[in-house]
């Protein structure tokens, strides 16, 4: 690693990869991958909007991402509505970028990712969310397992409201922070692809979580090792590496 200059981006990237991979496993189990697209895109709208008004990016992105998640949670429509919301977000970013110079720069940053420029603020946010995640893992596992039961009904007690809300807030925070630092395409690739690849290899829920982390971490480290010496943007390299790893996992599962 070329000196300490990239230590903070590297650590922030590692932590965010762990968080996004865990969130991806949860979204996979919930069958909510389309929601991730919509949420991430509207976090980007929030970030671009904040840049125009010179407001702090993270709170605005969280607010819009959270609003979209709240809307999608109220609907039983799992595919078309999230896709429509995603497209509306894409249109909003494009229109903002076309009309405001500042927005154009911000939109490019959300698309390409800013990992090499991540600073202490991003690292602190990632550490804070990682610590919260350690506390929340038992709740997250319970909610994701409970989401599998329907249409059967268990006599055991269901997760309470604060646990369900806590999971949603955590998902929003992970996706927004991940999109802000890695860029939207790279964050979505880390969310969706390692969990999908791991789902073919794992024997159970614990296996799914561990395989997802393993694939995501190999993807991050490989993309880091390729993009820096070859002077390539990190986000597209990470997307391609994750595609290869997920397909590799699928083929490995077919061969065994």
């Amino acid at each position, binding site marked *: 690693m070329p000196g300490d200059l990239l230590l903070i981006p590297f650590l922030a990237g590692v932590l965010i990869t762990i968080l996004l991979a865990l969130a991806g496993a949860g979204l996979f189990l919930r069958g909510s991958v389309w929601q991730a697209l919509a949420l991430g895109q509207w976090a980007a709208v929030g970030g671009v909007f904040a840049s125009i008004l010179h407001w702090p990016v993270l709170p605005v992105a969280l607010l819009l991402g959270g609003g979209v998640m709240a809307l999608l949670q109220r609907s039983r429509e799992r595919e078309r509505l999230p896709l429509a919301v995603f497209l509306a977000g894409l249109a909003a970013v494009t229109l903002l970028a076309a009309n405001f110079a500042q927005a154009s720069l911000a939109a490019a940053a959300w698309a390409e990712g800013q990992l090499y420029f991540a600073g202490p603020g991003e690292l602190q946010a990632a550490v804070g969310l990682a610590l919260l995640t350690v506390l929340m893992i038992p709740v997250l596992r319970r909610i994701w397992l409970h989401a599998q039961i329907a249409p059967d009904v268990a*006599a055991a007690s269901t997760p309470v409201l604060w646990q369900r809300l806590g999971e949603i807030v955590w998902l929003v925070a992970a996706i927004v922070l991940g999109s802000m630092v890695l860029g939207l395409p790279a964050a979505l690739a880390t969310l969706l692809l390692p969990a999908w690849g791991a789902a073919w290899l794992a024997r159970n829920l614990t296996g799914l979580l561990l395989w997802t982390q393993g694939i995501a971490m190999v993807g991050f480290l490989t993309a880091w090792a390729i993009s820096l010496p070859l002077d390539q943007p990190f986000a597209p390299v990470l997307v391609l590496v994750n595609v290869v790893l997920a397909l590799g996992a699928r083929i490995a599962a077919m061969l065994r």
Partner: protein
Amino acid sequence: MPPEALPPILSARSARLGFDRPVIGPLTLEIPAGARWALTGPNGAGKSLLLKAITGQARVHGGLFQPAPAARISLLAQDHHRPQPWPLSGHDWFRAMGATTPAHAGVRALLDRRLDRLSGGQWQLLRLAAVLNSHADDASSQRLILLDEPANHLDAEVRSDAIELIKTVPTQTTLLITSHDDAFLRALELEIHPLAEYLDAR
């Protein structure tokens, strides 16, 4: 407390049940605590709808429909689609259902397997065992187990296991089963109650 000393586990009086609009009713019946009922009737009679109304998945549009407030209710739905891939094991399924694992060797043999790699019959047996044992460790609670066509998908290999599991449910637990499989119901020695007898009651 013996089951006969308890109030009915379900009371319905002139109840109309449905989803967006009423589909069946008026329905009047009382199911005693500890009963072993098989609810029969042709397809579309409303048997599954009644079970869903008990769990709160269907709506009550009028009349009285009152499951016992303290009842712990579990339901085996008629079908449970399995996504592909589905990286969960039998142990995960029992944890999801809050169920204790039974001593039954046929069920224990499935616990380490992935759910999406079980045969249709094995999957049905595993779900049945989990529903029967959901919250079973709390002996103080009043339990109502609803089984909607539990004989569906059961091949010869697991059919006798399913009958054996249902027969070992504790006597204080109430069982309400729908099925078109007369041989299955006879093997379980249940009271047969045609749903039509409780509809349009005054």
